Structures are given as structure tokens and as C-alpha cells.
């Protein structure tokens, strides 16, 4: 363990955990060399900062927001480059009738979450019904014989207790 004295409070390092006896809330600027709770910024490694250098400052981005142009090397003017402006790809909204707000006159609608049963009913139920009517699927008591040769048993499948067997 190594004790490092810092502004009236003792900070002991043990097993890579940093404990401090003073208040944990300190201003960002007073932390040296930079506030380790946040990622490093270009201003944290400026030449005037402890441990900073011009090379490190230039390696990091200047702004959080990406620039949309370039500075002319000789004249210094800022040239706007349209290709650097982000382009949002949104779906085509022609014929889309939904609007940002809902009219006060519209009735209140509540729908429950979509259950696996709803997914089954939407995707498979129709084909299963057609197959059964045509005779491709045969039900004999507890066994179900499918067209591809598989034989299923109703006992192997757990259903809802409230469901009635038709």
C-alpha cells in the first residue's frame, strides 16, 4: 500500500482501488492530471496542463460535434463541405396518415402486449387449419401425424390450463 498525501486527505492505493477519506465530490478542474471518471479530452492534455503536450492535444478531437467543413490552409477561411453534413436516411412517408398528435375526439385505445400466441395465429394458424381440412394433418386421439412423416404427441406439449380441447 502506498499513501499519497493530497490536499488534506490521505489516499491509499490498495489492489487497484482508489479510496479517499475526504468528500468524494470534488470539482472537475481541481483533479490532476484529469478527472478519471470521464474520458480524456483535448483540453486535458494541452501543453499547459501537467503531463500534456502539443502532440497529444492534436491527436484528440477538438470538439465532440463533428465539423462540417475545412479550414483553408493558406487563407484560413472556413469552407463548408456539404458532403460532411450528416444525411439522415428516413423511410418514404408518402401516403402515411399518422400525425404527431392524437385528436382529443379520438377514442382511447389500450392494447395488451403481443404474445407468442398472437405471433403463431398470425404466421402459422391459417396454414395449419388448411392442412387439417385437406387431410394432410391427421389427428388420432393423442397423436398428430404430419405430412412429412413426423408424429407428435399432445402429452409432450404443455398448453394453457384454461384452454378447452376441441
Amino acid at each position, binding site marked *: 500500500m502506498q499513501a499519497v498525501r493530497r490536499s488534506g486527505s490521505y489516499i491509499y492505493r490498495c489492489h487497484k482501488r482508489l479510496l479517499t477519506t475526504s468528500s468524494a465530490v470534488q470539482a472537475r478542474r481541481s483533479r490532476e492530471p484529469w478527472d478519471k471518471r470521464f474520458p480524456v479530452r483535448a483540453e486535458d492534455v494541452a501543453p499547459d496542463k501537467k503531463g500534456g503536450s502539443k502532440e497529444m492535444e492534436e491527436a484528440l478531437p477538438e470538439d465532440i460535434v463533428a465539423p462540417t467543413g475545412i479550414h483553408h490552409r493558406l487563407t484560413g477561411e472556413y469552407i463548408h463541405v456539404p458532403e460532411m453534413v450528416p444525411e439522415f436516411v428516413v423511410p418514404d412517408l408518402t401516403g402515411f396518415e399518422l400525425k404527431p398528435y392524437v385528436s382529443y375526439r379520438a377514442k382511447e*385505445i389500450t*392494447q395488451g402486449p403481443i404474445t407468442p400466441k398472437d405471433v403463431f395465429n398470425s404466421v402459422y394458424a391459417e396454414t395449419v387449419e388448411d392442412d387439417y381440412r385437406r387431410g394432410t394433418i391427421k389427428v388420432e386421439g393423442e397423436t398428430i401425424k404430419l405430412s412429412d412423416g413426423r408424429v407428435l404427441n399432445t402429452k409432450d406439449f404443455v398448453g394453457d390450463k384454461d384452454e378447452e380441447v376441441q
Partner: protein
Amino acid sequence: MRLTLVALGYFKKYVQREIAKASGVSVYTPIQGWRHVRKRDWIYGENRPWTDAAKEANLPGKRLREVIEPIPESEWKIFKGDRVQILKGIDKGKQGLVCTIIKERNWCYVEGLNCSYKWVNKSASSPGFLSKVEKPLLVTTEVSLLDPSDLQPTETEWRYDEDGQRVRVSARSGRVVPLSDRALNEAEDMVDKNAYVEQSWDTKEKELTKVTFTPKAMSFEEDIMDSMGIKEDRERAPNYYY
């Protein structure tokens, strides 16, 4: 998809936000984040909480002197548009319609009754005009609902009718005291639904009730790939985490 509470409670959130801004200070510190300090209990009054007058009545140091009897939400009986009889005050015995309700103070205002009169814009040449402002009445003791059969004050109870609807029933005759149209057609932000004029930014009921989504037995990403014709034959490498 269920309409979330966030969407439905926009007005409630707006009111709470305005109250929080005017009854304390929000302070930001790193890691702790935003905290509300120097909080004060909001004093509800005749002015709505987002108005300047209400915020002025809630400056630091102001206190509510009276004690408010707590009435649970389920036991609240007086609504906008109800016909009531005033039991106490200068207009004792008179009947009128309820125009405003302030639940936090157990107040109700009856249209044109229990008013205070004041001469405004008085000058040497003219007497000005007489302003008539309704004074609040306590819902518990000073006002009573009427029995529809004889239009006399009666005690009411919340009961369930044959259809399972929760209704107010007169204790004396057993007749249902119906809610007025004004109360039933009022939205949470006090907008009259029937009088509302639909705008270009409003989704109409016809569009709202259309069901255009069909559930598919594939994930969202697979659905997008399927609709755009993207085919992915590569298999994901095994991922182990313990």
C-alpha cells in the same frame, strides 16, 4: 402496443415540472446528477399551478394556514357541471352548477353564487364597474349534491350498477346521480373533447384504429433484411461468456 404511461400523463408531468421549478432549485453535481434542493410544499390556490399568480403565492416563506381534510380520489363526488345546493354562506339554500373544482383544497366554485363584489376602476368622475368573483366552497361541508327526483340535498354514495359501472347513488331515494356531459367530455388538460376542432397535426380516429401491423416469426433485424432483400449466409462465431 400498449400506450405508455409517459404518453398519457403529459399534462400531469407538465404540472409537476412547473411546480418543481417554482418550489425549489435544481442543482447538478457530477456522479450525483440532478437534485432538487430548498424544496417547499406547494400551496394550491384559486390560480392554476403554472400561472404567475400561483408561483407568487408559493414564494419562499409562504405557508398554508388552514388544515385540509384528505379525501381519497375514489371518494370524490363533486364534478364539473353538477347541480348542487349551497348549505352555508350568503347564498345558503340556492342551487347552481359547479364550474370549477380544486381538489387539493377541497374547493368547488358554483356559477354566479357565493360571490364577492368589488368596485373596480373607481375615479372622481365615474364609479367604475362592479366586479363579481365567485368564492370557493368546501366540498365536504358547504355544498351538497341533489337527488334528481326531487332536487333536494342528499347524501350520495359510490356504488356499482347492473352493468358494472361505478355510479353515484342518492342515499335517500336510491336514484343514480349522473355525471354531466361537461365532466365526461373533459380531457386531462381541461379541453372539451366535443368542442375541439381537429387540426392538420392531429391523427384522426379512423387512422388511429387501423391495424396495419402483422406479427412475424422473426426478429426486427431479420425482418428488415427480408424486406430489403439482404441475404446473410455467414454464421456468427461462437460467443462464450460465463
